[in-house]
């Protein structure tokens, strides 16, 4: 969504921060409360004198309301502050900072991301050196060869009288071992070259896959009729997918999207979306499709079929996030573990039972979302073997106020909720508050 289309949301956020009711603000700037309500929900554009008047009443610069600061930028700045753990960071003024000094704020955010990437690269390399079975085996093989060569060469050099039969045997052994050593060395160098390429990227494979999906806005209509070879070729051509791992993961996702598109052709699906007002459970029932497939299809097509784009997140049974389609206001963490209150995780303990919950995302710009979640088994079912599950959550932004089932956050470090029973680690936001 373009930045200037969120002016209404920023006015609402600032009004709530100022402790003003909608009717109060409306009266002070000479408009009706219902008109202000439309503005606050981005249903009416606002600018000129009215914007200046509202900014004056709310005691902020008009540009901060009209331009704001990217939510992602603010979120990254909050994460940066939380990671450093400095209590004197003025977190309550982070959006003001990002709004007034976007260049500096962007620089801090970029540096924070770069630092995180470097830390992960270092951790990956350390882990590889200490735990990589291939590296350990190669080194063991090479040291064994070197030992044999050293010992044999020592015998030939130091033994004054040695029978011709033994001499010939040791020469042959030296020749064999030196050949094996040469081969092992070459294999190790090749392996380290590949490993170096993989570690050289500043992103994880999953991030690269998500960047590719976002670059295509989650639309791959041109691949609906493609075969596997074409999908692989497509993945290889994506410059953002720098590693083989990322390409393989992308192909897995594209195969899933292709299967969804074949199961739920766009025309038929669009008609069902309109008929059932994007209720995924009703659509799945009507089209006799698995709910997870409907979630994915809705998320991919929502930018075209609906007023507001939908978010999507998927995890496996360990809770590891494997696919994310970000949605404004519901931050899906990049690296930290997510909020355990998400319906996504509740669905994991109740497989095959669709969940529908209205949640409020904690924070000053708290927004309501309707979340649908389902956990479905993967692979073929077999007798007496518990299946593995993938859980999906579709995230639908809601307008205005209304009842909320529970508050959820993004990740503990940047969640202000003080009395959360699911908290894993302290929040700097809660601490500073």
């Amino acid at each position, binding site marked *: 969504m373009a930045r200037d289309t969120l002016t209404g949301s920023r006015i609402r956020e600032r009004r709530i921060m100022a402790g003003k009711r909608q009717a109060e603000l409306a009266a002070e700037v000479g408009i009706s409360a219902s008109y202000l309500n439309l503005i606050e929900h981005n249903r009416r554009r606002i600018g000129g004198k009215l914007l200046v008047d509202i900014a004056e009443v709310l005691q902020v610069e008009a540009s901060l309301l009209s331009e704001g600061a990217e939510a992602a930028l603010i979120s990254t700045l909050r994460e940066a502050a939380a990671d450093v753990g400095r209590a004197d960071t003025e977190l309550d003024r982070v959006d003001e900072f990002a709004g007034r000094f976007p260049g500096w704020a962007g620089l801090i955010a970029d540096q924070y991301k770069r630092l995180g990437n470097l830390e992960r690269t270092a951790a990956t390399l350390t882990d590889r050196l200490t735990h990589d079975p291939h590296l350990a085996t190669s*080194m*063991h093989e090479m*040291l*064994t060869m*070197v*030992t*044999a060569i*050293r*010992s*044999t060469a*020592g*015998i030939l050099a*130091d*033994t004054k009288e040695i029978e011709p039969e*033994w001499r010939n*045997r*040791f020469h042959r*052994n030296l020749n*064999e*071992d030196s050949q094996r050593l040469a081969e092992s060395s070459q294999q190790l160098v090749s392996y380290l070259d590949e490993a170096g390429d993989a570690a050289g990227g500043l992103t994880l494979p999953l991030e690269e896959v998500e960047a590719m999906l976002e670059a295509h806005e989650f639309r791959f209509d041109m691949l609906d009729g493609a075969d596997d070879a074409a999908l692989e070729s497509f993945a290889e051509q994506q410059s953002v997918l720098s590693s083989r791992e990322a390409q393989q993961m992308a192909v897995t996702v594209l195969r899933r999207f292709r299967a969804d598109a074949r199961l739920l052709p766009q025309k038929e699906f669009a008609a069902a979306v309109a008929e059932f007002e994007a209720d995924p459970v009703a659509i799945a029932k009507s089209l006799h499709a698995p709910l997870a497939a409907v979630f994915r299809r809705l998320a991919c097509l929502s930018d075209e079929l609906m007023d507001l784009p939908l978010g999507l997140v998927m995890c496996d049974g360990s809770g590891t996030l494997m696919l994310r389609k970000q949605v404004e206001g519901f931050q899906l963490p990049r690296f930290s573990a997510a909020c355990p209150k998400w319906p996504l995780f509740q669905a994991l303990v109740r497989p095959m039972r669709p969940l529908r919950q209205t949640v409020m995302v904690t924070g000053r710009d708290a927004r309501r979302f309707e979340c649908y979640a389902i956990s479905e088994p993967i692979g073929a079912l077999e007798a007496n073997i518990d299946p593995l599950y993938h859980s999906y959550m579709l995230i639908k932004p809601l307008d205005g106020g209304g009842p909320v089932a529970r508050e959820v956050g993004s990740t503990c470090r940047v969640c202000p909720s003080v009395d959360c029973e699911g908290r894993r680690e302290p929040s700097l936001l809660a601490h500073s508050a």
Partner: protein
Amino acid sequence: MGKSVLLIEDEPNIIEAISFILSRDGWAVSTHSNGHDAVGVVQSTQPDLVILDVMLPGKSGYDILREIRGHSDTSGLPVLMLTAKGQVKDREMAERIGASRFMTKPFSNAEVLEVVRELVTE
């Protein structure tokens, strides 16, 4: 015939080289190349010293050493462990289990001879 050494190692050319050196020094050398039944061989041959590689097919040198130390008739047997892993934790592991000495590959022939002589004299 001199004192006996059992060499448990899976790399044929290392077996050949060490056997040659020790034989020339007067030791009666027997060899075995897998971990699976190594403990049985130790018990049946009753050598004066065992040279034991850590990485063996079938069973690790650490597990073999544990079993050797667990049997009353072999619990005091001198065992020289050989490994390509020279990390402190590997050395500590070997000492904890009861290795008499720990030698990291690659080693020189002179070092092996010296340690073997020391261990049997001890």
